[in-house]
Protein backbone atom coordinates (compact mmCIF):
# COMPACT_ATOMS: atom_id res chain seq x y z
CA UNK A 1 0.00 0.00 0.00
CA UNK A 2 1.47 3.27 -1.02
CA UNK A 3 1.39 6.31 1.19
CA UNK A 4 -0.03 8.50 -1.53
CA UNK A 5 -0.03 11.60 0.64
CA UNK A 6 3.67 11.20 1.39
CA UNK A 7 4.43 10.68 -2.30
CA UNK A 8 2.37 13.73 -3.22
CA UNK A 9 4.25 15.83 -0.66
CA UNK A 10 7.68 14.53 -1.68
CA UNK A 11 6.92 15.41 -5.30
CA UNK A 12 5.64 18.81 -4.21
CA UNK A 13 8.85 19.32 -2.21
CA UNK A 14 10.91 18.24 -5.25
CA UNK A 15 12.66 15.80 -2.92
CA UNK A 16 14.04 13.46 -5.57
CA UNK A 17 15.73 11.11 -3.10
CA UNK A 18 12.55 10.59 -1.13
CA UNK A 19 10.35 10.19 -4.22
CA UNK A 20 12.66 7.60 -5.77
CA UNK A 21 12.89 5.66 -2.51
CA UNK A 22 9.12 5.59 -2.06
CA UNK A 23 8.41 4.61 -5.66
CA UNK A 24 11.00 1.86 -5.63
CA UNK A 25 9.47 0.42 -2.45
CA UNK A 26 6.00 0.71 -3.96
CA UNK A 27 6.98 -1.03 -7.19
CA UNK A 28 8.75 -3.80 -5.27
CA UNK A 29 5.51 -4.48 -3.39
CA UNK A 30 3.86 -5.76 -6.61
CA UNK A 31 0.91 -3.35 -6.75
CA UNK A 32 -2.25 -3.73 -8.82
CA UNK A 33 -3.18 -1.36 -11.62
CA UNK A 34 -5.65 0.64 -9.49
CA UNK A 35 -2.97 1.29 -6.91
CA UNK A 36 -0.53 2.37 -9.61
CA UNK A 37 -3.11 4.80 -11.00
CA UNK A 38 -3.52 6.20 -7.48
CA UNK A 39 0.22 6.81 -7.25
CA UNK A 40 0.23 8.45 -10.69
CA UNK A 41 -2.54 10.70 -9.43
CA UNK A 42 -0.45 11.48 -6.33
CA UNK A 43 2.47 12.56 -8.53
CA UNK A 44 0.12 14.75 -10.52
CA UNK A 45 -1.24 16.33 -7.34
CA UNK A 46 2.33 16.89 -6.27
CA UNK A 47 2.66 18.99 -9.44
CA UNK A 48 -0.26 21.10 -8.28
CA UNK A 49 1.69 21.82 -5.08
CA UNK A 50 4.64 22.80 -7.30
CA UNK A 51 2.38 25.13 -9.25
CA UNK A 52 1.08 26.72 -6.04
CA UNK A 53 4.57 27.26 -4.68
CA UNK A 54 5.58 28.79 -8.00
CA UNK A 55 2.58 31.10 -7.88
CA UNK A 56 3.51 32.11 -4.32
CA UNK A 57 7.09 32.91 -5.28
CA UNK A 58 8.71 30.08 -3.36
CA UNK A 59 9.62 28.15 -6.47
CA UNK A 60 11.06 29.56 -9.65
CA UNK A 61 11.13 28.44 -13.27
CA UNK A 62 14.23 26.34 -12.60
CA UNK A 63 12.19 24.41 -10.05
CA UNK A 64 9.40 23.90 -12.61
CA UNK A 65 11.95 22.50 -15.00
CA UNK A 66 13.23 20.10 -12.38
CA UNK A 67 9.64 19.21 -11.53
CA UNK A 68 9.00 18.29 -15.15
CA UNK A 69 12.06 16.05 -15.11
CA UNK A 70 11.05 14.46 -11.80
CA UNK A 71 7.53 13.83 -13.08
CA UNK A 72 8.82 12.25 -16.29
CA UNK A 73 11.10 9.97 -14.24
CA UNK A 74 8.17 8.97 -11.99
CA UNK A 75 5.89 8.19 -14.93
CA UNK A 76 8.68 6.22 -16.62
CA UNK A 77 9.04 4.15 -13.47
CA UNK A 78 5.30 3.50 -13.22
CA UNK A 79 4.36 3.09 -16.91
CA UNK A 80 5.55 -0.55 -17.19
CA UNK A 81 3.07 -1.49 -14.47
CA UNK A 82 0.15 -0.07 -16.40
CA UNK A 83 -1.61 -1.77 -19.28
CA UNK A 84 -1.69 1.19 -21.60
CA UNK A 85 -1.16 4.94 -21.54
CA UNK A 86 -1.03 7.06 -18.45
CA UNK A 87 -4.46 8.67 -18.63
CA UNK A 88 -5.27 10.32 -21.98
CA UNK A 89 -8.99 10.32 -21.41
CA UNK A 90 -9.53 13.78 -20.00
CA UNK A 91 -9.32 15.53 -23.30
CA UNK A 92 -7.00 16.44 -26.13
CA UNK A 93 -4.67 19.42 -26.32
CA UNK A 94 -3.02 20.51 -29.55
CA UNK A 95 0.20 22.19 -28.49
CA UNK A 96 3.00 24.02 -30.23
CA UNK A 97 5.51 26.84 -30.19
CA UNK A 98 4.32 29.42 -32.69
CA UNK A 99 5.82 30.53 -35.96
CA UNK A 100 9.25 32.16 -35.83
CA UNK A 101 10.01 30.97 -32.31
CA UNK A 102 12.16 27.94 -31.63
CA UNK A 103 11.98 27.76 -27.83
CA UNK A 104 10.48 24.61 -26.43
CA UNK A 105 11.35 24.11 -22.77
CA UNK A 106 8.19 25.70 -21.36
CA UNK A 107 6.09 23.87 -23.93
CA UNK A 108 7.71 20.58 -22.93
CA UNK A 109 7.13 21.18 -19.23
CA UNK A 110 3.46 21.92 -19.95
CA UNK A 111 3.23 18.78 -22.07
CA UNK A 112 4.62 16.44 -19.44
CA UNK A 113 2.45 18.01 -16.72
CA UNK A 114 -0.73 17.83 -18.78
CA UNK A 115 -0.05 14.24 -19.86
CA UNK A 116 0.44 13.33 -16.23
CA UNK A 117 -2.84 15.11 -15.50
CA UNK A 118 -4.60 12.79 -17.95
CA UNK A 119 -4.63 14.79 -21.17
CA UNK A 120 -3.70 13.46 -24.57
CA UNK A 121 -1.25 15.97 -26.03
CA UNK A 122 -0.55 16.40 -29.73
CA UNK A 123 2.77 18.23 -29.72
CA UNK A 124 3.37 19.95 -33.04
CA UNK A 125 6.87 21.06 -32.10
CA UNK A 126 8.49 24.45 -32.61
CA UNK A 127 8.19 27.24 -35.18
CA UNK A 128 4.70 26.15 -36.22
CA UNK A 129 2.73 28.31 -38.66
CA UNK A 130 -1.00 28.95 -38.20
CA UNK A 131 -1.77 26.38 -40.91
CA UNK A 132 -0.14 23.64 -38.83
CA UNK A 133 -2.37 24.45 -35.85
CA UNK A 134 -5.45 24.54 -38.11
CA UNK A 135 -4.62 21.20 -39.68
CA UNK A 136 -4.04 19.61 -36.27
CA UNK A 137 -7.32 20.97 -34.90
CA UNK A 138 -9.18 19.62 -37.94
CA UNK A 139 -7.55 16.22 -37.57
CA UNK A 140 -7.55 15.69 -33.80
CA UNK A 141 -10.60 17.73 -32.76
CA UNK A 142 -9.10 18.87 -29.46
CA UNK A 143 -10.86 20.66 -26.67
CA UNK A 144 -7.88 22.92 -26.16
CA UNK A 145 -5.22 24.62 -28.25
CA UNK A 146 -2.04 25.59 -26.41
CA UNK A 147 0.39 28.09 -27.90
CA UNK A 148 3.83 28.82 -26.51
CA UNK A 149 6.20 31.69 -27.26
CA UNK A 150 9.18 33.33 -25.64
CA UNK A 151 10.10 36.09 -28.10
CA UNK A 152 7.87 39.13 -28.66
CA UNK A 153 7.50 38.14 -32.29
CA UNK A 154 5.38 35.25 -31.06
CA UNK A 155 2.59 37.69 -30.13
CA UNK A 156 1.89 38.40 -33.78
CA UNK A 157 2.17 34.69 -34.64
CA UNK A 158 -0.29 33.77 -31.88
CA UNK A 159 -2.75 36.39 -33.13
CA UNK A 160 -2.52 35.10 -36.69
CA UNK A 161 -3.04 31.55 -35.45
CA UNK A 162 -6.23 32.53 -33.61
CA UNK A 163 -7.40 34.40 -36.72
CA UNK A 164 -6.70 31.34 -38.85
CA UNK A 165 -8.83 29.21 -36.52
CA UNK A 166 -11.58 31.81 -36.76
CA UNK A 167 -11.46 31.85 -40.54
CA UNK A 168 -11.95 28.08 -40.65
CA UNK A 169 -14.84 28.25 -38.20
CA UNK A 170 -12.84 26.32 -35.62
CA UNK A 171 -12.33 28.98 -32.96
CA UNK A 172 -15.69 28.46 -31.28
CA UNK A 173 -15.05 24.76 -30.74
CA UNK A 174 -11.83 25.13 -28.75
CA UNK A 175 -10.39 26.94 -25.78
CA UNK A 176 -7.11 28.72 -26.48
CA UNK A 177 -4.42 28.96 -23.84
CA UNK A 178 -1.17 30.85 -24.31
CA UNK A 179 2.03 30.50 -22.35
CA UNK A 180 5.66 31.49 -22.29
CA UNK A 181 7.68 34.57 -21.54
CA UNK A 182 6.03 36.75 -24.17
CA UNK A 183 2.49 36.53 -22.77
CA UNK A 184 0.57 38.90 -20.52
CA UNK A 185 -3.01 39.97 -19.82
CA UNK A 186 -2.70 42.64 -22.50
CA UNK A 187 -1.27 40.35 -25.11
CA UNK A 188 -3.89 37.72 -24.24
CA UNK A 189 -6.67 40.18 -25.09
CA UNK A 190 -4.84 41.37 -28.21
CA UNK A 191 -4.35 37.81 -29.40
CA UNK A 192 -7.91 36.73 -28.58
CA UNK A 193 -6.95 33.82 -26.34
CA UNK A 194 -9.06 32.53 -23.44
CA UNK A 195 -6.31 32.23 -20.86
CA UNK A 196 -2.66 33.06 -20.37
CA UNK A 197 -0.03 32.03 -17.88
CA UNK A 198 3.70 31.91 -17.33
CA UNK A 199 3.13 29.03 -14.90
CA UNK A 200 2.79 25.66 -16.63
CA UNK A 201 1.14 24.06 -13.60
CA UNK A 202 -1.43 26.86 -13.48
CA UNK A 203 -2.17 26.35 -17.17
CA UNK A 204 -2.75 22.66 -16.61
CA UNK A 205 -5.22 23.50 -13.84
CA UNK A 206 -7.02 25.94 -16.16
CA UNK A 207 -7.25 23.24 -18.82
CA UNK A 208 -8.64 20.86 -16.22
CA UNK A 209 -11.35 23.37 -15.45
CA UNK A 210 -12.35 23.55 -19.11
CA UNK A 211 -12.97 19.83 -19.74
Amino acid at each position, binding site marked *: MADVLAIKQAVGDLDEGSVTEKLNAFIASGPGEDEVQAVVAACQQGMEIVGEKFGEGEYF*VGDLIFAGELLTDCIDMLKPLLGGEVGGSRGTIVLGTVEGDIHDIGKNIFRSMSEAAGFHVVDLGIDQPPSAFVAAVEEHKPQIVGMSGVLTLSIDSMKRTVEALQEKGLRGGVKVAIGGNAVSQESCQYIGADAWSKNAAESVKTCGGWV
Partner: protein
Amino acid sequence: MRGMGVDMATLKERTQIRTDSIEGRIPKRVFVFARFSLEAACGYAGVDLAKAHYDMELTEKAFESICKDFYSDALPVGNIRFPAPYQILGARNWVMGSNGAVQHPEIVTMEADEYDEYIANPYDAIVEKFLPRACPELDTDPANRSLVLGKAYRSFKKYSEGTRAVCGKLAAKYGLVPGFITGELIEAPFDFLADQLRGFKEINIDLRRRADKVKAACEATLPLMLKRAVPPVIRPGQINYIPLHLAPYIKMGDFEKYFWPTLEELVNGMDKAGVACTLFAEEDWTRYAEYLARLPKSAILMFENGDCAKIKATAGKDHLIGGFFDPTITLTRSKEECIDEAKRLVDICAPGGNFYFAFDKGIMDIKSVDVPKLQAVLEWVSVNTNY
Protein backbone atom coordinates in the same frame (compact mmCIF):
# COMPACT_ATOMS: atom_id res chain seq x y z
CA MET B 1 14.26 66.38 -40.74
CA ARG B 2 16.91 63.96 -39.65
CA GLY B 3 19.67 63.08 -42.03
CA MET B 4 19.69 66.37 -43.93
CA GLY B 5 23.24 67.18 -42.93
CA VAL B 6 24.61 66.56 -39.46
CA ASP B 7 23.66 69.22 -36.94
CA MET B 8 26.99 69.64 -35.13
CA ALA B 9 25.34 71.28 -32.14
CA THR B 10 23.11 68.23 -31.69
CA LEU B 11 26.04 65.85 -32.03
CA LYS B 12 28.05 67.85 -29.50
CA GLU B 13 25.10 67.91 -27.12
CA ARG B 14 24.55 64.17 -27.46
CA THR B 15 28.21 63.44 -26.82
CA GLN B 16 28.15 65.59 -23.70
CA ILE B 17 24.94 63.99 -22.42
CA ARG B 18 26.41 60.55 -22.96
CA THR B 19 29.68 61.40 -21.22
CA ASP B 20 27.90 63.08 -18.31
CA SER B 21 25.63 60.05 -17.92
CA ILE B 22 28.53 57.60 -17.92
CA GLU B 23 30.57 59.70 -15.52
CA GLY B 24 27.77 60.13 -13.01
CA ARG B 25 26.98 63.82 -13.58
CA ILE B 26 23.49 65.17 -14.19
CA PRO B 27 23.23 65.67 -17.98
CA LYS B 28 21.27 68.32 -19.85
CA ARG B 29 18.46 65.83 -20.46
CA VAL B 30 17.82 62.09 -20.44
CA PHE B 31 19.87 60.13 -22.98
CA VAL B 32 17.74 58.12 -25.41
CA PHE B 33 19.12 54.68 -26.35
CA ALA B 34 16.63 52.92 -28.65
CA ARG B 35 17.50 49.46 -29.99
CA PHE B 36 16.19 47.69 -33.08
CA SER B 37 17.45 44.39 -34.48
CA LEU B 38 18.11 43.72 -38.16
CA GLU B 39 14.87 41.70 -38.24
CA ALA B 40 12.86 44.67 -37.00
CA ALA B 41 14.67 47.07 -39.34
CA CYS B 42 13.99 44.87 -42.38
CA GLY B 43 10.35 44.55 -41.40
CA TYR B 44 10.08 48.33 -41.13
CA ALA B 45 11.94 49.09 -44.35
CA GLY B 46 10.27 46.35 -46.37
CA VAL B 47 13.64 44.72 -46.99
CA ASP B 48 13.87 40.96 -47.41
CA LEU B 49 15.55 39.77 -44.18
CA ALA B 50 16.80 36.51 -45.69
CA LYS B 51 18.71 38.54 -48.30
CA ALA B 52 19.83 41.29 -45.90
CA HIS B 53 21.65 38.69 -43.79
CA TYR B 54 24.12 38.30 -46.67
CA ASP B 55 24.04 41.76 -48.21
CA MET B 56 25.55 44.85 -46.57
CA GLU B 57 23.71 47.23 -48.91
CA LEU B 58 20.35 45.82 -47.86
CA THR B 59 21.45 45.87 -44.21
CA GLU B 60 22.35 49.52 -44.62
CA LYS B 61 19.00 50.31 -46.27
CA ALA B 62 17.13 48.63 -43.41
CA PHE B 63 19.23 50.24 -40.68
CA GLU B 64 19.00 53.66 -42.27
CA SER B 65 15.21 53.59 -42.25
CA ILE B 66 15.33 53.22 -38.45
CA CYS B 67 17.93 55.96 -37.96
CA LYS B 68 15.84 58.29 -40.09
CA ASP B 69 12.42 57.70 -38.56
CA PHE B 70 12.92 56.92 -34.86
CA TYR B 71 14.42 59.38 -32.41
CA SER B 72 17.50 58.12 -30.59
CA ASP B 73 20.68 59.77 -29.33
CA ALA B 74 22.58 56.51 -29.63
CA LEU B 75 22.83 54.60 -32.88
CA PRO B 76 19.70 52.44 -32.58
CA VAL B 77 20.85 49.58 -34.79
CA GLY B 78 23.46 46.85 -34.86
CA ASN B 79 23.89 43.14 -35.50
CA ILE B 80 26.22 40.38 -34.43
CA ARG B 81 24.39 37.19 -35.39
CA PHE B 82 25.21 36.55 -39.04
CA PRO B 83 23.90 33.24 -40.34
CA ALA B 84 26.76 32.72 -42.82
CA PRO B 85 29.55 31.77 -40.39
CA TYR B 86 27.15 29.58 -38.43
CA GLN B 87 26.08 27.83 -41.62
CA ILE B 88 29.69 27.18 -42.58
CA LEU B 89 30.17 25.60 -39.16
CA GLY B 90 26.90 23.66 -39.40
CA ALA B 91 26.05 25.25 -36.06
CA ARG B 92 23.28 23.65 -34.02
CA ASN B 93 23.40 26.37 -31.39
CA TRP B 94 22.55 29.35 -33.61
CA VAL B 95 19.96 28.71 -36.30
CA MET B 96 17.55 30.71 -38.41
CA GLY B 97 13.86 30.43 -37.58
CA SER B 98 11.31 30.30 -40.38
CA ASN B 99 11.04 34.09 -40.34
CA GLY B 100 14.77 34.61 -40.77
CA ALA B 101 15.58 35.57 -37.19
CA VAL B 102 18.77 33.90 -35.95
CA GLN B 103 17.98 32.22 -32.63
CA HIS B 104 19.59 29.99 -30.07
CA PRO B 105 17.74 26.70 -29.59
CA GLU B 106 18.16 24.60 -26.48
CA ILE B 107 21.35 22.59 -26.89
CA VAL B 108 23.52 20.38 -24.74
CA THR B 109 27.15 20.18 -25.83
CA MET B 110 28.57 19.08 -22.49
CA GLU B 111 27.25 15.96 -20.79
CA ALA B 112 26.81 15.66 -17.04
CA ASP B 113 29.76 13.29 -16.75
CA GLU B 114 32.09 15.75 -18.51
CA TYR B 115 32.15 18.37 -15.78
CA ASP B 116 35.50 17.18 -14.46
CA GLU B 117 37.34 17.52 -17.73
CA TYR B 118 35.80 20.95 -18.31
CA ILE B 119 36.84 22.05 -14.82
CA ALA B 120 40.38 20.77 -15.39
CA ASN B 121 40.82 22.80 -18.58
CA PRO B 122 37.81 24.62 -20.00
CA TYR B 123 39.24 26.00 -23.23
CA ASP B 124 40.83 22.71 -24.23
CA ALA B 125 37.59 20.85 -23.51
CA ILE B 126 35.65 23.35 -25.61
CA VAL B 127 38.05 23.22 -28.57
CA GLU B 128 38.42 19.43 -28.54
CA LYS B 129 34.98 18.20 -27.57
CA PHE B 130 32.18 20.69 -27.21
CA LEU B 131 32.87 22.92 -30.19
CA PRO B 132 32.55 20.08 -32.75
CA ARG B 133 29.33 19.01 -31.04
CA ALA B 134 27.91 22.51 -31.37
CA CYS B 135 29.25 22.78 -34.94
CA PRO B 136 29.21 19.36 -36.63
CA GLU B 137 31.02 20.60 -39.76
CA LEU B 138 34.04 20.70 -37.46
CA ASP B 139 33.55 17.09 -36.43
CA THR B 140 35.85 15.74 -39.09
CA ASP B 141 39.55 15.07 -39.82
CA PRO B 142 42.07 17.74 -38.77
CA ALA B 143 42.71 18.99 -42.29
CA ASN B 144 39.06 19.60 -43.13
CA ARG B 145 38.45 20.95 -39.70
CA SER B 146 41.10 23.66 -40.05
CA LEU B 147 39.70 24.69 -43.42
CA VAL B 148 36.11 24.89 -42.10
CA LEU B 149 37.19 26.98 -39.12
CA GLY B 150 39.22 29.23 -41.39
CA LYS B 151 36.25 29.80 -43.70
CA ALA B 152 33.86 30.44 -40.82
CA TYR B 153 36.24 32.89 -39.20
CA ARG B 154 36.77 34.76 -42.46
CA SER B 155 33.03 34.91 -43.02
CA PHE B 156 32.50 36.22 -39.50
CA LYS B 157 35.13 38.91 -40.05
CA LYS B 158 33.57 39.93 -43.36
CA TYR B 159 30.12 40.46 -41.90
CA SER B 160 31.18 41.99 -38.60
CA GLU B 161 33.52 44.48 -40.28
CA GLY B 162 30.92 45.18 -42.95
CA THR B 163 28.27 45.82 -40.29
CA ARG B 164 30.64 48.00 -38.30
CA ALA B 165 31.33 50.07 -41.40
CA VAL B 166 27.60 50.49 -42.11
CA CYS B 167 26.98 51.52 -38.49
CA GLY B 168 29.87 53.99 -38.57
CA LYS B 169 28.56 55.52 -41.78
CA LEU B 170 25.03 55.91 -40.42
CA ALA B 171 26.22 57.29 -37.09
CA ALA B 172 28.21 59.94 -38.94
CA LYS B 173 25.36 60.71 -41.35
CA TYR B 174 22.71 61.12 -38.64
CA GLY B 175 24.89 62.58 -35.90
CA LEU B 176 24.40 59.61 -33.58
CA VAL B 177 26.72 58.63 -30.77
CA PRO B 178 27.53 55.11 -29.53
CA GLY B 179 25.20 53.54 -27.00
CA PHE B 180 26.48 51.65 -24.00
CA ILE B 181 27.54 48.51 -25.84
CA THR B 182 30.83 49.19 -27.58
CA GLY B 183 33.18 46.40 -26.51
CA GLU B 184 33.29 42.64 -26.18
CA LEU B 185 30.37 40.30 -25.63
CA ILE B 186 30.93 38.20 -22.51
CA GLU B 187 28.78 36.31 -20.07
CA ALA B 188 28.51 35.59 -16.39
CA PRO B 189 30.40 32.30 -15.89
CA PHE B 190 27.18 30.61 -14.78
CA ASP B 191 25.41 31.74 -17.97
CA PHE B 192 28.34 30.60 -20.11
CA LEU B 193 28.02 27.17 -18.56
CA ALA B 194 24.25 27.18 -18.88
CA ASP B 195 23.64 28.67 -22.30
CA GLN B 196 25.67 26.61 -24.72
CA LEU B 197 27.33 23.87 -22.69
CA ARG B 198 24.70 22.32 -20.42
CA GLY B 199 21.51 23.98 -21.64
CA PHE B 200 18.72 25.65 -19.71
CA LYS B 201 17.01 22.44 -18.66
CA GLU B 202 20.14 20.51 -17.66
CA ILE B 203 21.72 23.33 -15.62
CA ASN B 204 18.60 23.51 -13.49
CA ILE B 205 18.80 19.78 -12.92
CA ASP B 206 22.55 20.12 -12.18
CA LEU B 207 21.75 22.61 -9.43
CA ARG B 208 19.87 19.82 -7.67
CA ARG B 209 21.99 16.81 -8.55
CA ARG B 210 25.58 18.11 -8.77
CA ALA B 211 25.74 21.64 -7.43
CA ASP B 212 29.36 21.28 -6.33
CA LYS B 213 30.34 20.65 -9.96
CA VAL B 214 28.40 23.72 -11.06
CA LYS B 215 30.34 25.84 -8.58
CA ALA B 216 33.70 24.48 -9.70
CA ALA B 217 32.77 24.89 -13.36
CA CYS B 218 31.86 28.55 -12.81
CA GLU B 219 35.19 29.12 -11.12
CA ALA B 220 37.01 27.43 -13.99
CA THR B 221 35.12 29.60 -16.47
CA LEU B 222 36.06 32.89 -14.81
CA PRO B 223 39.60 33.17 -16.24
CA LEU B 224 38.17 32.34 -19.68
CA MET B 225 35.71 35.23 -19.41
CA LEU B 226 38.32 37.60 -18.00
CA LYS B 227 40.68 36.86 -20.85
CA ARG B 228 37.83 37.49 -23.26
CA ALA B 229 36.85 40.70 -21.53
CA VAL B 230 40.24 42.40 -21.51
CA PRO B 231 41.82 42.38 -24.98
CA PRO B 232 45.55 42.97 -25.56
CA VAL B 233 44.69 46.50 -26.70
CA ILE B 234 41.85 48.11 -24.77
CA ARG B 235 39.93 50.63 -26.90
CA PRO B 236 39.35 53.98 -25.16
CA GLY B 237 35.87 54.11 -23.72
CA GLN B 238 35.41 50.36 -24.21
CA ILE B 239 32.20 49.12 -22.64
CA ASN B 240 31.75 45.35 -22.72
CA TYR B 241 28.33 43.78 -22.81
CA ILE B 242 27.05 41.12 -20.44
CA PRO B 243 23.52 39.83 -21.14
CA LEU B 244 22.46 38.12 -17.91
CA HIS B 245 20.23 35.11 -18.45
CA LEU B 246 19.63 32.47 -15.79
CA ALA B 247 19.39 34.39 -12.52
CA PRO B 248 15.65 35.22 -12.62
CA TYR B 249 14.83 31.55 -13.07
CA ILE B 250 16.63 30.24 -9.99
CA LYS B 251 16.06 30.74 -6.29
CA MET B 252 17.96 33.25 -4.18
CA GLY B 253 20.08 30.62 -2.46
CA ASP B 254 21.34 29.26 -5.77
CA PHE B 255 21.96 32.80 -7.04
CA GLU B 256 24.03 33.65 -3.98
CA LYS B 257 26.09 30.48 -4.08
CA TYR B 258 26.52 29.82 -7.78
CA PHE B 259 25.52 32.73 -10.01
CA TRP B 260 26.72 35.81 -8.19
CA PRO B 261 30.28 35.20 -6.89
CA THR B 262 31.97 34.68 -10.25
CA LEU B 263 29.92 37.42 -11.91
CA GLU B 264 31.03 39.87 -9.25
CA GLU B 265 34.65 38.78 -9.67
CA LEU B 266 34.37 39.19 -13.42
CA VAL B 267 33.08 42.77 -13.22
CA ASN B 268 35.62 43.67 -10.55
CA GLY B 269 38.39 42.15 -12.67
CA MET B 270 37.35 44.24 -15.67
CA ASP B 271 37.09 47.38 -13.57
CA LYS B 272 40.62 46.83 -12.24
CA ALA B 273 41.88 46.49 -15.79
CA GLY B 274 40.15 49.75 -16.72
CA VAL B 275 37.29 48.26 -18.73
CA ALA B 276 33.65 49.21 -18.19
CA CYS B 277 30.65 47.00 -18.90
CA THR B 278 26.91 47.14 -19.41
CA LEU B 279 24.99 44.38 -17.71
CA PHE B 280 21.61 43.64 -19.26
CA ALA B 281 19.51 42.19 -16.46
CA GLU B 282 16.99 40.21 -18.49
CA GLU B 283 13.61 39.39 -16.97
CA ASP B 284 13.14 40.65 -13.40
CA TRP B 285 16.17 41.41 -11.21
CA THR B 286 14.30 43.37 -8.51
CA ARG B 287 15.15 40.79 -5.85
CA TYR B 288 18.83 40.98 -6.83
CA ALA B 289 19.09 44.77 -7.08
CA GLU B 290 21.09 45.09 -3.88
CA TYR B 291 23.73 42.78 -5.31
CA LEU B 292 24.03 44.90 -8.44
CA ALA B 293 24.44 47.94 -6.21
CA ARG B 294 27.71 46.45 -4.94
CA LEU B 295 29.33 46.43 -8.34
CA PRO B 296 31.91 49.05 -9.28
CA LYS B 297 30.53 52.31 -10.71
CA SER B 298 31.94 51.43 -14.13
CA ALA B 299 29.10 48.91 -14.45
CA ILE B 300 26.16 50.34 -16.41
CA LEU B 301 22.86 48.55 -15.85
CA MET B 302 20.04 47.78 -18.24
CA PHE B 303 16.75 46.31 -17.10
CA GLU B 304 13.96 44.42 -18.86
CA ASN B 305 11.26 44.06 -16.19
CA GLY B 306 11.09 44.79 -12.50
CA ASP B 307 10.10 47.34 -9.90
CA CYS B 308 11.81 50.43 -11.29
CA ALA B 309 11.33 52.43 -8.07
CA LYS B 310 12.98 49.75 -5.93
CA ILE B 311 15.77 49.35 -8.45
CA LYS B 312 16.32 53.10 -8.69
CA ALA B 313 16.62 53.28 -4.90
CA THR B 314 19.19 50.49 -4.71
CA ALA B 315 21.18 49.70 -7.84
CA GLY B 316 20.26 53.06 -9.35
CA LYS B 317 21.77 55.10 -6.55
CA ASP B 318 25.34 54.95 -7.79
CA HIS B 319 24.93 53.31 -11.18
CA LEU B 320 23.66 54.47 -14.54
CA ILE B 321 20.41 52.56 -15.17
CA GLY B 322 17.89 52.33 -17.99
CA GLY B 323 15.33 50.06 -19.63
CA PHE B 324 11.90 48.96 -18.34
CA PHE B 325 9.89 50.51 -21.18
CA ASP B 326 7.92 47.80 -22.99
CA PRO B 327 7.33 49.00 -26.57
CA THR B 328 4.66 46.35 -27.19
CA ILE B 329 2.21 48.38 -25.08
CA THR B 330 1.88 50.59 -28.16
CA LEU B 331 -0.23 47.81 -29.69
CA THR B 332 -2.94 47.97 -27.03
CA ARG B 333 -2.81 51.45 -25.48
CA SER B 334 -3.45 54.91 -26.87
CA LYS B 335 -0.63 57.29 -27.79
CA GLU B 336 -1.32 59.38 -24.69
CA GLU B 337 -1.28 56.29 -22.45
CA CYS B 338 2.04 55.19 -23.93
CA ILE B 339 3.56 58.62 -23.36
CA ASP B 340 2.14 58.55 -19.82
CA GLU B 341 3.96 55.30 -19.22
CA ALA B 342 7.22 56.81 -20.47
CA LYS B 343 6.57 59.82 -18.25
CA ARG B 344 5.90 57.58 -15.25
CA LEU B 345 9.23 55.86 -15.79
CA VAL B 346 11.10 59.13 -16.23
CA ASP B 347 9.47 60.65 -13.12
CA ILE B 348 10.59 57.69 -11.01
CA CYS B 349 14.03 57.05 -12.43
CA ALA B 350 15.41 60.33 -13.79
CA PRO B 351 15.58 62.52 -10.65
CA GLY B 352 19.17 62.87 -9.55
CA GLY B 353 20.50 61.67 -12.87
CA ASN B 354 21.96 58.19 -13.44
CA PHE B 355 19.17 57.32 -15.90
CA TYR B 356 18.88 56.79 -19.65
CA PHE B 357 15.74 55.94 -21.60
CA ALA B 358 15.72 52.52 -23.29
CA PHE B 359 13.28 49.79 -24.25
CA ASP B 360 13.03 46.74 -22.02
CA LYS B 361 14.85 44.88 -24.77
CA GLY B 362 15.85 45.39 -28.40
CA ILE B 363 12.87 45.28 -30.75
CA MET B 364 13.05 42.06 -32.74
CA ASP B 365 9.84 42.28 -34.74
CA ILE B 366 8.41 45.55 -36.06
CA LYS B 367 4.91 44.04 -35.91
CA SER B 368 5.24 43.84 -32.12
CA VAL B 369 4.94 47.66 -31.92
CA ASP B 370 2.70 50.41 -33.27
CA VAL B 371 5.15 52.56 -35.18
CA PRO B 372 3.53 56.02 -34.95
CA LYS B 373 2.90 55.66 -31.21
CA LEU B 374 6.45 54.45 -30.58
CA GLN B 375 7.84 57.34 -32.60
CA ALA B 376 5.72 59.69 -30.50
CA VAL B 377 7.07 58.22 -27.26
CA LEU B 378 10.69 58.63 -28.36
CA GLU B 379 10.07 62.19 -29.54
CA TRP B 380 8.38 63.02 -26.25
CA VAL B 381 11.36 61.76 -24.23
CA SER B 382 13.79 63.70 -26.39
CA VAL B 383 12.13 67.08 -25.65
CA ASN B 384 10.49 66.67 -22.24
CA THR B 385 13.26 65.42 -19.98
CA ASN B 386 15.44 68.47 -19.38
CA TYR B 387 16.92 68.64 -15.93
